[in-house]
């Protein structure tokens, strides 16, 4: 029923014609273009769509637009009245409370309502108020701090508005400057002026005002809506897919099925050994519940959905298998029966496809195997004083990025494809999409957008992205496909659950002499990153302890479960959980302090790993000792307790790559120097919350001796930015950062040449700092802008541009072998050690995470505020994985595909965070920097499991550590 309604939004009245079934969220975003109100779930579970209705926070996705008539509605766009930022907005940006920014508008509005009602809230009040706003990036730590700080500032100033124009760029730079001045008092003593400083993020203002654009916010004229039909069966042959009824539905513009794209095949892993096994739409079989069958483009969402229901599919149900160990048995149903042959998308780069055959592994349904042997395990065990064998199991977890995956594709008549994607590497996606669509790589233009959290879940090229592009080509119109939250949970990859059998032999003093690992990773219906995760589980583990005799066998196995893929620290949390849980048990067996055992075995700077990687920086031991000291380990460990609430501490360590060599092999960057002394930095990196835009700008500013505010960044765009590896395997800081530094250095050399001629001093004597270039005394020299202008005039008008590139491991042209773990892996490893303190309620079995102490060796913190934010996010995700997150599967069906039923941590359970950095200064990294974004999730699991054991004597070897499991174990112990 269409009707006129009048909505009062941000102080002005809007008369609109709406359908009675449209929600306030639909109307704000689609009719009023107020896209600062975000859609995270559409079912009232995440708070991303929070708006104020008569001053109270409500989820706009559960309010009918027509029912909001007569109410005063405030959206994030209405908070900066007359362009003046609200103190909350400033505090969020200043204090690092913004990462991906997708939750930010909702959280800020919720906080505003709190402060309006309670101007002096306590920390607990704040946590309770924002309990309905999920944030996956920050662990709520800096959000809570920012809200308290804003409250204090408002009470102090007595004014609710500070002077600062949000909308115009020049004054937003002023705002940044003000913020920076405030922070400069806190600056660490640091030989650098811009890097190493906790500067507010460049994207902060856009995000706190709701102006940052994500894919879902892209609106093009004539845009169609795409939807995907998915399999309700875990394993079935497609007998018939009949679209004739759906095609006749008015408003349907195009329909595609597997038959249209039967010869398109790609996959994340596409090597000579493992050929690609995915089609954009199922051709002959469906292999999991959610497998894509057909896609529709229509004039609106309602029509697209109706069309899906009119497609007739006939299935022949096949026996399915869901347990990886059962899938390996000889009589198990075979999930991929045909060997895949044909050209690889990497052929142009020298890769050949060979037929995949699972026969050679001796088990069924094997999608990958990694075997490593070092030393002589049998001899090693013979030398051991004590041997333990344990079996650990980890659960399936979800990325839980607040922004649902979305793609917009617009095919131009010229043959050029424009796409906006939720991605982590625009160049990787461009390559695969171009190959799959049969286009030249350069015909695909991936446009820059902000990404609302990724955590590994936005790396792969997904069928919906291919379908959006294909349907746009069919219709000649732009097509948008936004996944529902359920589709995100089920079809965009999950973390690999693993079964890890671990046998370890130690000497009496805890020195490891031999270790044998058998690991099974269930990669679901398609290979996904199966062979990668079993390789990485080894590769992220081997840099921690010295193990002279070591045997590792990892299998990745096909089942009819949803597909698994990369998730933050890909493989590390699982193996680190097993290793450090067992080490704690071994220490108990031997009556030793686990910290001593860790230190006894820990690697050091200078160690050479079995594959040849050299640890040129390694702060592992220092991380362990400092985490132990800071956390109060000695007083807290092994306390004798009798009360109902008992506390315990546990420790674990982890390590992570800093980039690795894969397509496009290197990251490049460019800078253009403007004649006013500002610069533009061009980089292909992605900004998905981790702060790349800001840290890359800091690197360029430092190198050129200018301020952060002088740098404008063009990022994540395949036409505007040079090639980049993208943001996985944590290469951002080291690899892209190095390229940026080199590009800036290149430009600096050009300027120095000119300045040295003018000042008649050799270039080596020049310094760039404080926006000046000078020799010795800053007064002798010229401003950066003057130098740029001089260079232009003296060089025939040639503008100053610098370029740089960096390839991880430049001397190796070979990828590491996934199957043998041979060949170099990464230029440098980041490290972390974590101590968790828990409180277990012996009556209810509930575990409360009290405090987490993380010491992280990221080489050098380019921006401590951002580094802290990354650690907070890792701690929170680790907490979730250890205690409450669990994708529940029965017969391949996900029972909790929602934020209501899949339990991301909420503000109320946020632990106290203590974090510290160990600056090991990696020689290869820019200013000594290396990885920080992923590693420190991996130490959380064993740290918590060990802490629970310390508290109540209960050992859990399977995750998550839920209350009911503790009760069960306690009951069993009580007999």
């Amino acid at each position: 029923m269409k009707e006129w309604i009048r909505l009062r939004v941000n102080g002005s009245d809007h008369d609109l014609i709406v359908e009675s079934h449209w929600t306030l969220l639909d109307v704000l975003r689609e009719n009023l273009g107020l896209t600062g109100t975000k859609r995270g779930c559409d079912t009232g579970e995440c708070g991303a769509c929070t708006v104020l209705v008569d001053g109270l926070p409500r989820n706009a996705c559960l309010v009918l637009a027509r029912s909001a008539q007569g109410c005063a509605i405030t959206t994030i766009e209405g908070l900066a009245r007359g362009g003046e930022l609200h103190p909350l907005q400033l505090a969020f940006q200043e204090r690092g409370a913004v990462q991906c920014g997708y939750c930010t508008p909702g959280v800020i509005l919720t906080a505003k309502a709190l402060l309006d009602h309670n101007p002096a809230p306590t920390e607990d009040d704040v946590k309770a108020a924002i309990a309905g706003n999920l944030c996956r990036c920050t662990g709520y730590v800096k959000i809570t701090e920012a809200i308290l700080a804003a409250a204090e500032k408002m009470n102090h100033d007595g004014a609710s508005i500070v002077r600062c124009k949000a909308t115009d760029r020049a004054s937003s730079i002023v705002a940044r400057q003000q913020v920076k001045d405030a922070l400069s008092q806190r600056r660490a003593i640091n030989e650098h002026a811009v890097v190493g400083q906790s500067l507010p993020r460049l994207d902060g203002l856009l995000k706190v005002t709701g102006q940052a654009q994500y894919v879902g916010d892209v609106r093009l004229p004539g845009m169609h809506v795409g939807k995907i039909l998915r399999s309700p069966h875990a394993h079935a042959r497609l007998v018939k897919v009949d679209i004739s009824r759906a095609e006749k539905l008015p408003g349907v513009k195009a329909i595609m099925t597997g038959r249209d794209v039967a010869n398109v095949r790609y996959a994340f892993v596409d090597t000579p050994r493992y050929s690609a096994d995915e089609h954009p739409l199922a051709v002959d079989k469906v292999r999991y519940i959610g497998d894509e069958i057909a896609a529709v483009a229509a004039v609106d969402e309602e029509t697209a959905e109706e069309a899906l229901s009119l497609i007739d599919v006939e299935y022949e149900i096949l026996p399915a298998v869901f347990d990886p160990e059962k899938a390996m048995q000889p009589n198990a149903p075979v999930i991929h029966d045909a060997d895949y042959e044909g050209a690889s998308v990497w052929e142009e780069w020298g890769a050949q496809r060979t037929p995949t055959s699972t026969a050679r592994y001796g088990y069924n349904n094997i999608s990958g195997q990694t075997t490593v042997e070092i030393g002589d395990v049998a001899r090693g065990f013979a030398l051991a004083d004590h041997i333990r064998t344990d079996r650990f199991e980890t659960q399936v977890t979800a990325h839980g990025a607040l922004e649902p995956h979305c793609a917009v594709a617009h095919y131009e008549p010229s043959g050029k494809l424009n796409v906006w994607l939720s991605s982590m590497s625009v160049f990787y996606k461009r390559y695969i999409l171009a190959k799959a669509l049969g286009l030249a790589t350069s015909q695909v233009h991936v446009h820059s957008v902000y990404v609302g959290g990724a955590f590994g879940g936005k790396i792969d090229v997904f069928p919906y992205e291919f379908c959006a592009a294909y349907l746009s080509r069919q219709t000649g119109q732009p097509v948008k496909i936004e996944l529902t939250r359920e589709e995100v949970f089920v079809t965009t990859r999950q973390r690999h659950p693993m079964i890890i059998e671990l046998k370890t032999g130690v000497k009496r003093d805890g020195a490891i002499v031999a270790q044998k690992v058998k690991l099974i990773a269930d990669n679901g219906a398609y290979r996904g990153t199966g062979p990668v995760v079993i390789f990485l589980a080894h590769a992220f583990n081997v840099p921690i302890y010295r193990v002279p005799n070591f045997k590792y066998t990892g299998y990745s196995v096909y089942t009819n479960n949803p597909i698994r893929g990369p998730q933050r620290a890909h493989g590390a949390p699982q193996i680190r959980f097993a290793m450090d849980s067992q080490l704690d048990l071994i220490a108990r067996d031997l009556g030793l302090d686990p910290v001593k055992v860790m230190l006894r075995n820990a690697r050091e700077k200078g160690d050479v790993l079995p594959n040849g990687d050299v640890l040129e920086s390694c702060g592992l031991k220092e991380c362990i000792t400092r985490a132990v000291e800071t956390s109060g380990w000695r007083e807290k460990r092994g306390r004798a307790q009798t009360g109902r609430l008992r506390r315990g501490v546990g420790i674990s360590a982890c390590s992570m790559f800093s980039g690795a060599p894969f397509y496009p092999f290197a990251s490049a960057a460019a800078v253009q120097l403007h004649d006013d002394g500002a610069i533009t930095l061009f980089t292909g990196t992605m900004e998905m919350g981790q702060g790349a835009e800001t840290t890359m700008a800091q690197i360029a500013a430092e190198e050129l001796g200018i301020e952060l505010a002088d740098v404008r960044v063009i990022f994540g765009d395949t036409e505007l930015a040079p090639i980049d590896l993208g943001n996985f395997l944590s290469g951002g800081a080291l690899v892209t950062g190095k390229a940026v530094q080199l590009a800036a250095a290149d430009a600096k050399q050009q300027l120095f040449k000119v300045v040295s001629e003018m000042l008649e001093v050799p270039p080596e004597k020049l310094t760039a700092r404080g926006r000046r270039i000078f020799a010795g005394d800053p007064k002798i020299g010229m401003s950066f802008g003057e130098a740029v202008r001089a260079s232009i005039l003296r060089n025939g008008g040639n503008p100053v541009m610098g370029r740089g590139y960096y390839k991880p491991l430049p001397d190796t042209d070979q990828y590491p072998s996934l199957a043998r773990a041979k060949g170099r892996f990464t230029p440098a490893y980041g490290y972390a050690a974590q101590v968790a303190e828990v409180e277990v309620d012996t009556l209810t079995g509930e575990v409360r995470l009290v405090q987490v102490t993380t010491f992280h060796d990221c080489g050098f913190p380019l921006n401590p505020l951002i580094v802290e934010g990354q650690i907070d996010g890792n701690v929170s995700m680790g907490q979730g994985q250890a205690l409450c997150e669990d994708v529940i599967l029965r017969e391949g069906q996900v029972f909790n595909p929602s934020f209501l039923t899949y339990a991301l941590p909420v503000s109320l359970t946020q632990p106290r965070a203590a974090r510290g950095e160990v600056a090991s200064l990696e020689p290869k990294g820019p200013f000594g920097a290396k990885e920080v974004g992923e590693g420190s999730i991996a130490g959380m699991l064993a740290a918590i499991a060990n802490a629970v054991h310390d508290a109540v004597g209960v050992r859990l070897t399977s995750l998550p550590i839920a209350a009911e499991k503790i009760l069960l174990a306690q009951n069993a112990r009580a007999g």
Partner: protein
Amino acid sequence: MRLPRFDCFDPRTVEEACARLDAHAHEAKICAGGTDLLVRLKQRLDAPRALVNLGAVNALRDIQFDAETGLRIGALTTLRAIADSPPVRAHYPMLAQAARAAASPQIRNQATLGGNLCLEKRCWFFNQSQSWRQARAACLRAGGAQCWAIQSADVCHALVVADTVPALIALRAQVVITSSRGARTLPLDQLYAGLGNATTRLAPNEILTEIRVPAPLPNSHGVYLRYSTRPAIDFALVQVAALLIREEPDGVCREARLVVGALAPTPVEAQQAAAILNGQRFTHDVVAAAADAAVKEVKIVPHIFLEPAAKRRLARAFLAEALQQVMRDT
């Protein structure tokens, strides 16, 4: 995710609302806060032709307290208003606890008490999206022939999980039900239909208009606790409401009311456990015996990730905790 199409009516009085419901008989649904109904519609669990939106019926929004006659709450009062209401907090703290325990702050700003009491029963096999449900044969609740929660059952085993229900049953609340033919009053525990598809005994043209709670008894104290994976957003996996009336000055228990929710299709009042407490002075042994007895009285429906035994252990723990809290607080 778009809502399905429907017509929408906004009556301003209860009479108008009743007339609308009569006119649209089985094709209309009452919408109060809409926090549950709109999700159900998005999941296509319901497809009413029309919504009768009670949002404009302002007469149903207030809370009145009188020390003699007790508490009267209009059905449209939000959970937030109840949790923050001074008389509720002072005289019926367990109701305030229950209202604050539900969902999230945003939802409590919109969710109504009437909607909470009429919240449809939930099940892990039913409260899912339309495409999700297509992966299995329809269950009894969806018009099929089988209960997935208990596969041998021939009747639906979905659960009443609304947070205010156990607390209000323990408080002996009554609900006023209005239709065009007049009003009737029902003790809250009799509102629920038990096993089977229906959640309440309301006819489609009836509106729950008011909740009445008797005046607080001297020396009585109640506690509401729940277990859920997280302390916000989630529905409860276990609910316990414990109310004790004690005799002064010796503190002997005169009457105990223990209501356990989210374990069986409707909340269960544990009579035998109450009998154990009655006439007793509180010791840890008495508490333990009562908690043990209470969980034995409930036939627990298996949960998708909690075995009945696990739920029983948790329920026992939370009952013991609730009783201990009552002891501590009084």
